[in-house]
């Protein structure tokens, strides 16, 4: 099952420094600690939008895993993700993400997520994503 086992995490999530915090019901909490190499604007020290995009995408995928105990290991693929950026992430503060898979059907998982610094009520960005479930676990020739 999904846990803090870092070895199971995608290399790119590790490269971003993503950390698992906890799971509360269907709500998955993760964070991206502030780091200089994630900065998008050296004048301000604000992290790049790409970091937020990648972290939200990753958290949404994990949220599906968290919600699917019975079908653990089913391969899936992101169909789409829409991200709204409300404000820059505060420099030198960690980015937290809460992602929740709020509906699963046979083929599709629907996920929403919010990224913030100190309070979920004051978002840096929000996203909605859909995932196709049961995609091939190996590439066809």
């Amino acid at each position: 099952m999904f846990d803090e086992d870092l070895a199971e995490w995608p290399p790119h999530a590790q490269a971003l420094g993503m950390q698992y915090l906890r799971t509360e019901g269907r709500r998955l909490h993760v964070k991206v600690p502030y780091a200089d190499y994630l900065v998008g604007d050296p004048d301000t020290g604000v992290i790049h939008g790409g970091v937020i995009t990648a972290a939200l995408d990753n958290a949404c995928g994990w949220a599906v895993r968290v919600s699917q105990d019975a079908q653990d290991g089913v391969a899936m693929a992101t169909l789409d993700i829409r991200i709204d950026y409300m404000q820059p992430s505060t420099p030198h503060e960690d980015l937290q993400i809460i992602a929740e898979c709020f509906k699963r059907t046979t083929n599709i998982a629907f996920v929403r997520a919010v990224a913030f610094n100190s309070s979920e009520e004051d978002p840096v960005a929000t996203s909605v994503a859909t995932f196709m479930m049961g995609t091939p676990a190996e590439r066809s020739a």
Partner: protein
Amino acid sequence: MEILRQLRDEGRAGDVQALLDHIPYARFMGFRAEVEGDTVTTIMPFKDSLIGNVSLPALHGGTIGALLEVTSVMQLLFDTQCERLPRTVDISVDYLRSGYPVDTYGQAIVTRQGRRVANVRAEIWQTSRDRLIATSHGHFLLTPV
């Protein structure tokens, strides 16, 4: 942004590679950019840290989303030659195929540029320009907040 003002003063406002070299996250991702005519092509050279699915293996969807966003912003900066970095308001990404562990390319077109906001569409491919692996459309704010 200081670097944009500097590049413009030096008559190099279209030097998107110089801008990428100045952005820590772009260096971390290894993003590059080439300009031909009025078109900016972005490149994300493959490296292991971009992988999202080890067993396929496939690129992390987030890296593709990030490249789409950077591609959009670079084309927009090239078109507007503005000295402020456009702020992403929203972006919608469609994933069409999983990304192979090879180099990835992107191009964007500014579909509408207003005074305050621009609409930008971007496309990402790998081995063949007509086999897209992802597309996006987004809105970008051009004015100061």
